[in-house]
């Protein structure tokens, strides 16, 4: 029993250290990508965004979206679904539950 406790107190710090180092490197990679990819748009970028939106609306009006390849269209659809999923993530945050409203 005493031997068990002794082993435990020796090995637990090592395990905790290993876990901390592992998560630190992962966190660093995560932060490295998040800083560029997941930040909200700065106010300076909003006109560019509105321009892109106008281009899309234009391509819908002039039927030039039919010139897209199927691969491009699929990719656009995938990106659009990802953007729409953020809506559901926001809803989950607001209702404080994953499935169903907790009334």
């Amino acid at each position, binding site marked *: 029993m005493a031997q068990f406790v002794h082993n435990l107190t020796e090995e637990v710090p090592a395990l905790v250290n290993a876990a901390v180092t592992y998560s630190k490197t992962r966190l660093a*990679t995560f932060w*490295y*990508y998040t*800083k*560029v*990819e997941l*930040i*909200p*748009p700065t106010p300076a*970028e*909003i006109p*560019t*965004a509105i321009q*892109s*939106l106008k281009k*899309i609306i234009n391509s819908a009006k002039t039927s030039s979206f039919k010139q897209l390849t199927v691969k491009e269209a699929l990719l656009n659809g995938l*990106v659009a679904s*990802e*953007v*729409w999923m*953020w*809506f*559901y*993530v*926001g*809803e*989950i*945050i*607001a*209702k404080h539950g994953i499935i169903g*409203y907790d*009334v």
Partner: protein
Amino acid sequence: MVPPVQVSPLIKLGRYSALFLGMAYGAKRYSFLKPRAEEERRLAAEAKKKPDEQKRIERELAEAQEDTILK
């Protein structure tokens, strides 16, 4: 490591506006559903009262009519 990709501002704008719209929708729907659920619980509790009362009366009658000497 792959360099991080430059996300188009339209996509960023779309993502964050969808996030905030979702939060607003969730909050509104929650505040709409909460009083309705409470009302329904109240109604269910009231509708339960009468059959419960009946059962209680029946149970007491049955107990009074039992002729066992073990009481």
